[in-house]
C-alpha cells in the first residue's frame, strides 16, 4: 500500500499536510519565515523550530529527541541562508498511532519517516525555498528478511528497525536504526530503501521501464506535488 498525502488541510498555517503511512498519521503545519525570538536568532541564517505533539498528553524527552533529528534533517533541505534572523516553525501533530503497544526504541524510529515526509510536504505547501526534494521510508529486518514499509505486525518481534531519507539525487539525508544488525545488513537495507524512495519520486513513465518497477511502489510524492501544481495553475487555463 502506498502512503497517502493530502496538502493544505489547515486554514491558518502557511503550509500544512497530512501524511499517512502504514503505521501513523501525522498532521504537519509550517509557518515561515516569521519573527524569531532574540534568544534563538541566528545572524546569518533562519532558525528552525520543530515541535512534535503526541496524540494524547504532552511531549517528553522522546519527542525532544525526535525534534532534534527532524530539525537537522530540515536544515539540510531548506535554503536557510535566504532568510537570516528569521524563523521557520514546523509543528507535527500525531493524529493516529498503531493500536499495538510497541517497544519505545522501535516506536521512536518507526515514527521518524512519517514525521519527515509530513514536515517536508508542509514546507512545500508553505512555499518555503527548498534545496532538494526528499522522501523518507522505513524498513524492518524480520527473520533475516528485509521488509520495506512494514505493517504493525511486522514491527512486533523484529530484529532491527531502520529509518532513512534520501534526496532525489540519491544522497542519504537521514539514517536512524535500532536493534541488532551488522554493517552488511545495514548496507542491504539502505540499498532497498534507496530504491523505494527513488521510486516515490520517479518521473512518470520512468519506473515502468525499470525492472520490477511495479513492486517498488508508485511515485506518490510526484503525483501529489503535480496535482498541487495543476490546482495552483488552474486559473491560468480558464483565461
Amino acid at each position, binding site marked *: 500500500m502506498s502512503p497517502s498525502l493530502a496538502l493544505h488541510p489547515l486554514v*491558518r498555517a502557511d503550509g500544512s499536510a497530512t501524511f499517512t503511512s502504514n503505521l501513523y498519521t501525522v*498532521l504537519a503545519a509550517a509557518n515561515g519565515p516569521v519573527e524569531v525570538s532574540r534568544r534563538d536568532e541566528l545572524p546569518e541564517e533562519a532558525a528552525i523550530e520543530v*515541535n512534535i505533539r503526541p496524540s494524547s498528553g504532552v511531549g517528553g524527552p522522546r519527542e525532544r529527541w525526535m525534534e532534534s533529528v527532524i530539525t537537522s534533517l530540515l536544515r539540510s533541505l531548506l535554503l536557510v541562508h535566504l532568510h537570516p534572523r528569521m524563523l521557520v516553525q514546523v*509543528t507535527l501533530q500525531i493524529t493516529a498511532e498503531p*493500536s499495538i503497544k510497541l517497544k519505545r526504541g522501535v516506536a521512536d524510529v518507526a515514527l521518524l519517516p512519517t514525521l519527515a515526509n509530513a514536515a517536508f510536504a508542509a514546507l512545500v505547501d508553505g512555499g518555503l525555498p527548498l534545496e532538494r526534494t526528499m522522501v523518507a521510508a522505513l524498513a524492518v529486518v524480520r527473520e533475516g528478511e528485509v521488509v520495506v514499509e512494514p505493517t504493525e505486525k511486522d514491527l512486533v518481534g523484529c530484529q532491527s528497525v531502520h529509518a532513512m531519507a534520501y534526496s532525489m539525487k540519491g544522497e542519504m539525508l537521514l539514517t536512524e536504526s535500532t536493534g541488532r544488525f551488522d554493517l552488511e545488513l545495514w548496507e542491504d537495507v539502505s540499498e532497498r530503501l534507496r530504491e523505494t524512495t527513488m521510486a516515490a519520486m520517479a518521473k512518470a513513465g520512468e519506473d515502468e521501464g525499470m525492472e520490477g518497477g511495479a513492486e517498488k511502489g508508485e511515485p506518490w510524492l510526484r503525483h501529489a506535488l503535480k496535482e498541487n501544481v495543476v490546482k495552483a495553475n488552474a486559473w491560468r487555463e480558464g483565461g
Partner: protein
Amino acid sequence: MPSEPAPSTNESTFLLSALRENIRLDGRALDAYRPISLTFGSEYGTADVRLGKTRVLAKIACEVTTPYPDRKFDGIFTINTELSPLGSPAFEVGRQDTTELLLSRVLEKTIRRSGALDTESLCIVAGQKCFHLKATLHVLDHDGNLVDASCLALVAALLHFRRQDIEVKGEDVTIFDVREREPIRLTIQHRPFCVSFSYYHNGEVMVQDATLLEEQCRQGEVVVSMNRFGEVAQIAKYGGAPVDGLSVLSCTTAALERVKGFDRMVTEALKADEARRDEGGLMAELSAENERPTGSMLVGSEN
C-alpha cells in the same frame, strides 16, 4: 509572533457600524452558527469538530494509576488544552496565554465540576488502582469561538470513548485487551455544552458564534454552559463593559435552544458511527448471550 495582529481601525469600525445595523460581515443572522460538522475517528474516543474555519480535535486516552490519597473512591480525569502553532502562528509553544487559560478554565467548570463524568466508575480497587482518563484537545485551526467547539468535541469524544473491561477478584485485577473483551462505555451523567455570546455597543448587540475578527472587536463575552434540560453548569462573563441582568437571562434562553440542537447532533452522529462500525451485524454475532432453547428443541432433545 507573540500575539495575533490586531485588526486595523478601518476594519473594526466597519464591523462595529455594521453590527449596529444588525448585519454581520459574513451575512449570518446575529444568533446563527457557522456550519458545524462532527466526525469520529477510527479509534474510540476521537472527535473532530469543525465550526466554520475553526477546527478542534479531541482525543481520550486511558491508563491505570493509583488514585489520589484523599480521593480513594474516585478515578482521575484530566483535561489538557495546550494550544500549538497549528491553530494560529500567534500561539507559542510552552507559554500559556490568556486564550488557553480561559479555555481550560471554562471546560474545567463545564465538564469536570458539573459532574458530567462519573469519576467513581473509574475506580478499580479503592485507594490502590483506578483509571486515569486523559482528554487532550488539539486546536487545529483557530477562527474564533474555540470554547464552544472544544466543549462540543470533548463531550462527543467522551461519549464515543470505550475503556477496557476489567475483572476484580479480591485484590487481583485483570484488565482485558480490546481484542479479548468488548470495551465498555464511560458513565456520563449529563451532557453539558457551552454557548458563548459576544457583546458590542454596551450590550445592545449580542452575537453568537463570533469569528476571530468579531472576537477581537468585542467588548466582552458571556459563556453559558448548560445541558438540554436547561440545568446551568456555569455562567461566565469576561470583559470590562457591564451587561444588563435581563440580557443574561435572554442569553440562557437562547443557549437552551442551541444546546438542544447540539445534543441532537451528537446523538445522531454517534448513532451513525455505531451503524458504520456494526456493518453486517457483527456486534450481534459477537454477543456472548446464549440463545434460548425453544419449546420444540427441548422436545427434540428428550427423544
